[in-house]
């Protein structure tokens, strides 16, 4: 139950940073925190009390109680996609800085319109 509250807290803080802050790199940091919160929530759904990891390490081991392997496969994919999107967003931020000279989102909006 603590895991649910921790994941929900991270999602809340990540959304707050994305909505309120106006420096572009801080918004991207908020995206990364939001991503971590969602991954934590997905894995804590698949947990079984007194369960073990889904690996048959010795031959002849019986499956007594094991945690769910499907959310773990999903989250493995999601972590790698998260870092790819982050790298692309940072490259766009670098080009914006070279073009406008500032990273403040209010000033960039005022300059354009």
């Amino acid at each position, binding site marked *: *139950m603590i*895991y*649910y509250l921790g994941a*929900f807290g991270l*999602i*809340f803080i990540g*959304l*707050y940073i994305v*909505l*309120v802050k106006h420096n572009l790199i801080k918004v991207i940091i908020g995206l990364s925190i939001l991503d971590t919160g969602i991954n934590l929530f997905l894995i*804590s*759904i*698949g*947990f*079984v*009390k007194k369960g073990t*990891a*889904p*690996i*048959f*390490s*010795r*031959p002849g081991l019986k*499956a007594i109680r*094991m945690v*769910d*392997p*499907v959310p*773990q*496969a999903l989250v*493995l*994919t999601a*972590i*790698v*996609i998260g*870092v*790819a*999107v982050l*790298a*692309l967003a*940072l*490259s*766009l931020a*670098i*080009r914006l800085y*070279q073009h406008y000279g500032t990273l403040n989102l209010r000033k960039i909006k005022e300059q354009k319109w």
Partner: protein
Amino acid sequence: MRRIISILLLGIVALGIILSISKIPFGIPKSKVGKFYIDNGVKETGATNIVTSVVVNYRGFDTLGEVTILFIAALGLGAVLSTRKNKVERKIEPASLILRTGCRFLFPLILLFGTYIFIHGHLTPGGGFQGGAIIASAFLLIYLGCRERRISERGTKLIESLGGLIFVVVGLAGLVISGYFLRNFLPKGIPNLLFSGGIIPIIYIAIGFKVGSELAGIIDNLMEESG
């Protein structure tokens, strides 16, 4: 004003999330698909790591999509950041002797560790993505420690393309030989040995090389102009 509206919006969203989270029980087995994979995973695929057999064998097509997304992101980063043609030649002073020797000593050890992790991906926790990230960390160490060395760009692109090509060719071979795309057509072998699990070690080795060289290429593109 903007701050108050956004806090109100976040309050409504938080209330909705809390009301739906409190109805999910914690710690009770919930799904039947997971139970099927645990019970029949070793017999059907031959790999003893159930998460690996789900990622590569049962849901192999999703892994192909993810590798494509990583490729497109690296491509986009290279395209966005490479349009400045004037390279400013700043004088790079080399680091101290202890740092350079230490980095050169650690580099092959980290590469060996990363290779070990993705070769044993179907027997122990590990796999292609983890091993590829560790290989990229070894290249990052060379960039930070010995600052005048650069990785050859052609070698990185060649290894990355070869890795992706091997993945697709193995899938198409499964289509040609028997039935459908990405079918496990090699013999399964005895579980808990290194050569077991059909095509799973081949795909994971290809993914390990591809992800490692891709992330090293991303770091190379980002560090291009700032010395």
